[in-house]
């Protein structure tokens, strides 16, 4: 029986484990990927300060710290069920059962699909898949590709592919259908683009970002969006072109793109074929909360945080006694926030277990402030309403406590 079983060896899970080990709790971290690090492993971008955020290095720092505290980490372990028992949790995996008095679910996020005709062909992959292939496995995903979906995540990863020498034709919108309606709407996409404009050396976008809140400026920017796209790091970003279909028999051979109106309607007769051998689908991320659901944790639907969120308080505690959450399962934010949340969750578990220790309250408080500061300083915001979303979850937790 472990004191804590942690599901997910990403930035949240690892930093939580370190915090628990610092207080000498008996901990195991499990993850189904062959290497620890989660989505952090693949990240590589230059901060506005000029410094590089290197996910492999950041993971190594966490692993060194974990090793220093003799933390047990077991990869290649897939959890398929979790049960609450009278004295803790049973975690069912392909490598047998794990028992913990406490449970931390740090299972991260899954990618939201933006389905385009032909997207089941080999050579079509999620943008995150391309990131892992490029930076973790060091394999080129193809000779020349195109990105379907213009958002914070896809812009960052497109840049990573470029740095690795992988050629991208451009980034464009997925064609409009009932599923892709937000990702295919030039105005909504523009709203997202101006939030990352400070990262890009484009005067057009920087101009736009100053007026981000005025809808009329945005509408003009969409209407007069350059035909050749706005270039970020030399690569055209199109919000007035959409990928209508992905073509090929055994694998991707080309895509068909067309011009779209400011409302995202295709312009008839504007179709063009672009030869590519890979396509990255970028529909964004949603919290991967299936295990929290299986265990019976209550949920809240919070758009600002990316979807259905297990109810939890600021200290990452859920209404299920002894169960905690951290990282992207609590809402889509950066790896830095996830890491800070992990530490907070770890300390909260310590507090939960060792109630009468004077020191721990201060530590939890410090860690909570660290989460908030990290959030404020984030150079990439996935959603402008993060703070409102966080308040909603916290309120849900309090409401839940009062009614039960």
């Amino acid at each position, binding site marked *: 029986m472990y004191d804590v079983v942690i599901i997910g060896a990403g930035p949240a899970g690892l930093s939580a484990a370190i915090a628990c080990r610092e207080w000498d709790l008996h901990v195991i971290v499990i993850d189904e990927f062959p290497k620890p690090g989660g989505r952090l492993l693949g990240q590589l971008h230059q901060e506005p300060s000029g410094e590089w955020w290197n996910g492999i290095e950041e993971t190594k720092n966490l692993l060194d710290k974990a090793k220093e505290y003799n933390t047990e980490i077991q990869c290649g372990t897939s959890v*398929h069920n979790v049960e609450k028992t009278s004295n803790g949790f049973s975690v069912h995996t392909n490598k*047998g059962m794990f028992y913990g008095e406490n449970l931390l679910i740090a299972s991260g996020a899954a990618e939201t699909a933006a389905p385009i005709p032909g997207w*089941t062909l080999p050579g079509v992959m999620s943008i995150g898949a391309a990131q892992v292939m490029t930076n973790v496995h060091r394999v080129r995903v193809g000779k020349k590709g195109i990105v379907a979906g213009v958002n914070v995540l896809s812009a960052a990863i497109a840049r990573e592919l470029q740095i690795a020498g992988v050629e991208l034709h451009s980034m464009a919108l997925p064609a409009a*259908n*009932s599923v892709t*309606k937000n990702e295919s709407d030039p105005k909504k996409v523009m709203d997202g683009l101006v939030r990352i404009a400070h990262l890009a050396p484009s005067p057009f976008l920087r101009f736009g970002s100053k007026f981000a809140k005025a809808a009329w400026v945005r509408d003009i920017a969409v209407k007069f969006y350059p035909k050749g796209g706005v270039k970020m790091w030399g690569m055209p970003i199109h919000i007035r072109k959409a990928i209508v279909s992905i073509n090929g028999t055994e694998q991707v051979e080309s895509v068909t793109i067309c011009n779209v109106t400011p409302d995202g309607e295709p312009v008839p007769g504007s179709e063009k074929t672009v030869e590519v051998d890979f396509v990255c689908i970028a529909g964004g991320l949603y919290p991967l909360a299936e295990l929290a*659901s299986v265990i019976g944790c209550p949920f809240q639907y919070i758009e600002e945080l990316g979807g259905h969120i297990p109810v939890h308080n600021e200290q990452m505690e859920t209404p299920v006694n002894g169960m905690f959450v951290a990282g992207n399962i609590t809402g889509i934010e950066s790896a830095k926030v996830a890491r800070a949340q992990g530490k907070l969750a770890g300390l909260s578990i310590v507090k939960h277990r060792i109630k009468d220790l004077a020191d721990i309250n201060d530590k939890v408080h410090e860690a909570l402030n660290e989460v908030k500061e990290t959030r404020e300083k984030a150079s990439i915001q996935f959603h402008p309403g993060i703070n409102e979303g966080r308040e909603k979850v916290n309120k849900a937790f309090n409401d839940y406590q009062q009614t039960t």
Partner: protein
Amino acid sequence: MDKVIICRCEEVTLEDIKNTAEKHHCSAREVKLRKRAGMGYCGGRTCRPALDTVLQEVTGEVPGDDMPLKVQPPVRPVTLSVLGGQKQS
């Protein structure tokens, strides 16, 4: 355009899902039972948000605080030997 596949595992198209939802005015769960969308090998992890979006458009089923498609264990396909307690090498 509605010929696009939404559920990759079971190859269910947007048209299939829309028609079924319109005809029977049904929930995500009923669409899953009728057309197998979200019922395949991946357990709906890939198409779940897409299904929610389509159903919201067709039937006005707004995602409530409970997940529209209930998550059932096992959340990964497992062999009977693993379910029976054997460890994979």
